[in-house]
């Protein structure tokens, strides 16, 4: 292989990556644009809110309860070294509201609803169902992707708030009920020290994560290769990439919001 050929291949590879990245961004812009263009189909959004939101609720409550409980346990152990068990409430609450709530909720929804979405769109692509929509003069992005992104924007903040609240109760049950931290300061500490700023940050983060997870999972599913392995690969990539992006965005958002 001579030098010119090597450079040509390298260039082709870079171009391919840049085009793919551009396609990824355009996919989101396109989907968001179609949210505002007729025909409006609220029932499609409602169905997705049920699948992403309502159907994920039990899982979110379960994970939130255990997260809060382990925080209560660890927090009590550590705080009792300094004799400040009274600060347990605010420790658990801030950890959940600022970080664990939005991040863990997003990761769990990506694993549960995001993977299902990527697999569903991927197999629709593989069996020409997406082409069938196009031939019926129905825009598949508007019909399939836009409602999912809107549903993500609606569901993620709601699930995150549920996660936060359940986690705080879980921390209370273990820290106060089991370990014997003082009951009064648990909630009083939260009331006194948690500001609207903290609550805003949980909401901002969950909104951004909602868009990121839905965007990645829809994109990967929609662009799956038309074969069985294409669908499975799309599903894996969707979960991995959306998890990585959630954690990366979490860092950037925290550095802006803190």
């Amino acid at each position, binding site marked *: 292989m001579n030098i010119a050929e090597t450079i040509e291949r390298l260039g082709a590879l870079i171009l391919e990556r840049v085009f793919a990245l551009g396609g990824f961004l355009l996919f989101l812009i396109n989907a968001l644009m179609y949210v505002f263009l007729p025909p409006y189909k609220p029932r499609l959004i409602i169905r997705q809110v049920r699948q992403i939101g309502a159907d994920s609720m039990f899982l979110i409550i379960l994970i939130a309860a255990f997260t809060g409980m382990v925080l209560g346990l660890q927090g009590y152990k550590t705080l009792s070294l300094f004799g400040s068990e009274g600060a347990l409430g605010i420790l658990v609450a801030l950890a959940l509201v600022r970080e664990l709530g939005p991040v863990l909720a997003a990761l769990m929804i990506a694993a549960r609803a995001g993977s299902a979405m990527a697999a*569903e769109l991927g*197999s*629709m692509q593989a*069996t*020409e*169902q997406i*082409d*069938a929509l*196009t*031939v*019926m*003069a*129905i825009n598949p992005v508007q*019909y399939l992707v836009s409602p999912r992104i809107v549903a993500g924007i609606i569901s993620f903040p709601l699930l995150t708030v549920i996660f936060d609240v359940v986690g705080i109760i879980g921390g209370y049950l273990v820290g106060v009920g089991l370990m014997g931290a003082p009951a009064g300061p648990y909630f009083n500490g939260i009331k006194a020290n948690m500001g609207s700023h903290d609550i805003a940050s949980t909401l901002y983060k969950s909104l951004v994560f909602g868009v990121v997870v839905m965007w990645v999972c829809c994109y990967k599913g929609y662009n799956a290769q038309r074969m069985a392995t294409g669908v499975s690969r799309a599903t894996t990539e969707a979960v991995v990439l959306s998890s990585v992006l959630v954690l990366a965005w979490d860092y950037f958002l925290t550095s802006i919001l803190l």
Partner: protein
Amino acid sequence: MNQAQNGNPSSANAVEVRGLKKRFGRQQVLDGVDLDCPAQEITTIVGPSGEGKTVLLKHINLLLRPDAGTITIEGVEVTRLGALALNAVREKFGMLFQAGALFDSMTVFENVAFPLVEKTNLSVEEIAQRVHETLDAVGLQGMDTKFPSEISGGMQKRVALARALVRKPRILMLDEPTTGLDPTRTGAIHELIRNTQKNFGLSAVMVSHDVPAVFEISDRVAFIKQGKIRLYGTPAEVLAANDEVFDRFLKGRASGEDLEQTATA
């Protein structure tokens, strides 16, 4: 013979393709295709696997855009149209996909009703009536609440055909409608296509490798080879053309040679 090259009065053609070229990477899949699909007739595109049959159909149903050449659908040149104008042309289409492409999250009834629910303002009763009329026309009754996964391949094809017909299209496109069916069912689906085309007064463009069975229901046959239409005419004309490549293709189908070629390709 070769009416495509000589040209027909455009009013008589539902679809006219001229000089169509398409390249994927280094592969020139379509290399100057000329094709006429006369109105209210069945035009069947045949040819070996991987010679561009399906790609050609995907240009005619506007899923792909060509690199060069023109496609005229009922007098409208479509290769330069924008998204909205394209959708207006698509309103004329009914398309039967190779594997049916039924929505597997919906029942048979919902699948057939889907184009009406999404694209028209018909009432629930009117939609139900139209759906049942169309399902009757393809010979399916009492399947309304079944899901596509619960019915046989032949029935899925019928449902998909009903969905393609329910909005009373002007042009019906069929991508290998008999793939995966046994000879008896293949015959039944062919007969159904012929009858529907006559009863609905449709223009039909079909891709098939079911030769020579498909000739019985075709008004025109186009044989595609190496990205070009090599033979075109009525089935009798094409069979009588004594084209070496076409004869080998026919024999290959019969002896299964083609299968081996695809397997090693």
